[in-house]
């Protein structure tokens, strides 16, 4: 509403775009996240930002919403150059962001959440009636008359919580609205509802930036798209008449970085089956998944965010509740209800949350590495044999090329790649046969990534069975002997390495249909 009147009153002949970002660059240690990217959005359009994980989408949006400043480049709003030093400054300049993680306070009411920090009243005493009325008005504007604004946020279904989140941002009356993967956790009907709202907002003149990995939604609902690849702008194009396949092709480009595995490393089909999963279901997130992992094999598991691949991996390690199905190790059915039981069965998991779930930041490299294997280092039953422990740690530091001043350094002081290798060494030292990784290279720079890929291939060569869960297709393609594609919690397709292409995988990831198998 505001956007429209403002644009209409603009006297100049060429209306400047609502937002223009010119030549934006951003470097992080070891990576160029953005390299001179141009990006512009007009009022009254839904503009999709498209790219693989790590293409630079999040960095660009974080710069726009004031999370961090660009190293180079200029941001113009309505043709005027601005600096955005702080998230609240972004909000003041009319840029509202709906982040992936919800920020609602579960115990406050919907209305109180929407106006938290901006309560109506005289500055101290709150006028709750005004808040309720205004919240009602904002939600009515979105056509969401069914939401009770006095209900506690915790009592709303997720889709409605998300709409409240959007209402909260809209109550600041932004002219530019950023939505970061808002549809990832939503069901089809909820997604449809969300787009109805976005179209309504668009007709009011808002500039909407929409980030999603679902091409179907993008081509169906967005007006233009900007494609990023490896931190660079590929192109900006109108999306009318563009097919999902074209989009996928543009996004992938010619970048397949080649295979990390050489032909002679391919596993023999006759190798012993290390792990066999039959009809596994996990809560309502994974349904009826079956596969077998052989000695020396690397299986890649991929899918859209929330397609169930992470829960599958977690269930194999005993930290997600298994609802149905069996797990066999070397042909024998086993019960895995906790990490301890999984480890006893020779299975380990390295999760994507390295800091929260893997590291002991203030303990040394040595203590981080040997914790699950301490039983081996006991001397006479009670005390640890420091010499032997230290030797083993040194051997693994050398073998995995962990760059560290000494075995006594606190793990906190290491780089992401070296931290990941310390955790890997932890499980290798325990001599486990089945290694499961979730996003093994998230947050790790390019050089260390290649090293970790090398390590994985080598370990497969030594007879381990490896499962890599990842949303990075080049990683999956480069490492895997076989690729499992998950869609909506089900195993949509199994692809042998020789038959796998990035386009084919993307199609299955997006649509879940098992074409060409």
């Amino acid at each position, binding site marked *: 509403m505001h956007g429209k009147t403002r644009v209409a009153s603009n006297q100049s002949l060429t209306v400047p775009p609502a937002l223009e970002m010119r030549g934006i660059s951003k470097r992080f240690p070891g990576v160029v996240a953005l390299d001179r990217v141009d990006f512009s959005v007009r009022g009254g359009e839904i503009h999709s930002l498209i790219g693989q994980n790590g293409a630079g989408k999040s960095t660009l949006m974080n710069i726009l919403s004031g999370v961090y400043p660009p190293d180079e480049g200029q941001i113009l709003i309505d043709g005027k150059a601005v600096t955005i030093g702080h998230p*609240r400054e972004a909000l003041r300049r009319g840029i509202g962001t709906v982040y992936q993680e*919800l920020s609602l306070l579960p*115990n406050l009411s919907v209305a109180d959440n929407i106006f*938290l920090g901006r309560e109506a009243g005289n500055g101290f005493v709150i006028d709750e009636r005004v808040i309720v009325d205004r919240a009602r008005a904002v939600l009515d504007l979105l056509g969401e008359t069914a939401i009770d604004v006095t209900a506690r946020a915790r009592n*709303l*279904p997720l889709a409605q919580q998300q709409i409240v989140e959007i209402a909260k941002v809209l109550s600041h009356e932004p002219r530019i609205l950023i939505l970061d993967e808002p549809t990832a956790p939503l069901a089809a009907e909820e997604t449809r509802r969300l787009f109805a709202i976005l179209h309504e907002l668009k007709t009011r003149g808002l500039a909407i930036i929409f980030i999603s990995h679902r091409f179907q939604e993008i081509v169906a609902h967005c007006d233009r798209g900007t494609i990023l690849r490896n931190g660079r702008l590929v192109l900006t194009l109108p999306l009318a008449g563009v097919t999902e396949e074209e989009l996928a092709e543009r996004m992938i480009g010619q970048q397949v970085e080649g295979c990390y595995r050489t032909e002679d490393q391919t596993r023999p089909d006759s190798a012993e089956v290390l792990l066999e999963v039959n009809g596994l279901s996990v809560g309502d*997130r994974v349904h009826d998944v079956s596969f077998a992992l052989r000695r020396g094999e690397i299986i890649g598991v991929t899918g859209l*965010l929330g397609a169930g691949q992470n829960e599958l991996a977690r269930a194999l390690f005993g930290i997600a509740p298994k609802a149905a199905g069996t797990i066999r190790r070397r042909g024998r059915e086993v019960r895995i209800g906790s990490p301890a039981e999984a480890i006893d069965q020779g299975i380990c998991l390295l999760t994507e949350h390295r800091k929260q779930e893997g590291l002991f930041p203030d303990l040394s490299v040595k203590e981080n590495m040997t914790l699950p294997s301490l039983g081996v280092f006991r001397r006479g039953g009670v005390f640890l044999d420091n010499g032997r422990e230290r030797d083993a740690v040194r051997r693994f530091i050398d073998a995995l090329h962990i760059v560290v001043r000494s075995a006594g350094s606190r793990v906190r002081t290491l780089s992401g790649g070296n931290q990941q290798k310390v955790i890997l060494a932890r499980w290798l030292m325990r001599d486990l046969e089945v290694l499961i990784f979730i996003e093994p290279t998230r947050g790790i720079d390019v050089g260390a990534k290649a090293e970790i890929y090398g390590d994985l291939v080598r370990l497969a060569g030594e007879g381990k069975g490896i499962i890599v869960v990842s949303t990075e297709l080049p990683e999956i393609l480069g490492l895997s002997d076989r690729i499992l594609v998950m869609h909506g919690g089900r195993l949509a397709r199994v692809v042998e390495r020789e038959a796998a292409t990035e386009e084919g995988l993307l199609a299955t990831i997006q649509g879940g249909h098992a074409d060409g198998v």
Partner: protein
Amino acid sequence: MRREAGDGRWRSRGGEARYVAGTLLADYGLLLMFGVLVAIFTIINPGFLTVANVQSLLEQNAALAIVAVGTTFAIISRNIDLSPGSLIALSGVALALVFTATGNIVLGLLAGLAVAILVELCNALLIVGVGIDPLIVTLAAWIWVRGLAVSLTDASSVVVRSPFIDFMNSFELLGISPPIVLIGVAYLAGWFLLNKTRLGRYTYALGGDERATRQAGVNTAFYKILMFLMFGVFVWLGTIVTVSRLGAAAPDAAYGLELDAIVAVIIGGNPFHGGEGSLRRTAVGVLFIAVLNNGLSTLGMRDASFYAFKGMAILLALLFDVLSRQLLRGATAPARGQAV
């Protein structure tokens, strides 16, 4: 962390029913136990449920009831304050010393207020400004404030003789005495602050998610400090009833009061992890502790078994709380993707 990885508490299946049951238990479970307790005491001692005894029960526990209002704010905002018991002693000593020196009760009352607010300001600045854990800060205050009260008086009580004290002790209208009025004032003011002002709103918000609250543009540091200062005012009210009741400022007054207050807030059904709660629950918890204190002592229970019985009753009440939380854990909204 991503949206799919929600908090375990949000997960649910058939959650609404459990949520209702859990909330009912949290709200009324203790009330039930309270009724049982009153019944037992009345059967054993028919004089228990008389107007006179109820009145004296309230007067005996007036300081606890008032301080528990402040404690409720602290717990809801996911803070803790161990200093009020000691602070009542010190603030009382300040009141008595200034009164003795000037002969002016108003100056004495103001001195007590100033000390209560200053100590809480000191706590708040260390918590908010330096970033030290509230448990440590107020634990230290628990010690040094009591120490100061003892040192300033050479460990002996300072008598306060004033018409004001006489008024507090002897005035009565329809069975309502000034300490009971002060309890009422404290709960009314607390209710207003908690439900109708920004201070209350942000008290809940701080306990729910401090980072999200700050991101919403709330000056969390300011409101935290304000909350502790307000606590100081409640402590001061507690000082007035304590000094009046004794007719003197005792350096060992209100020993352990802070613990009773915390226990009252928790067994009343306010969760220790903050983010929610109400003064009604606190009031029930306070009544429970008050009846326990009064009932056990009218039974002529000696010190030792008094503590044992009191402790047992409190543990039992805690079980109610745990039970309601267990129900609530699997409860609430049906959506919010299943967490791992």
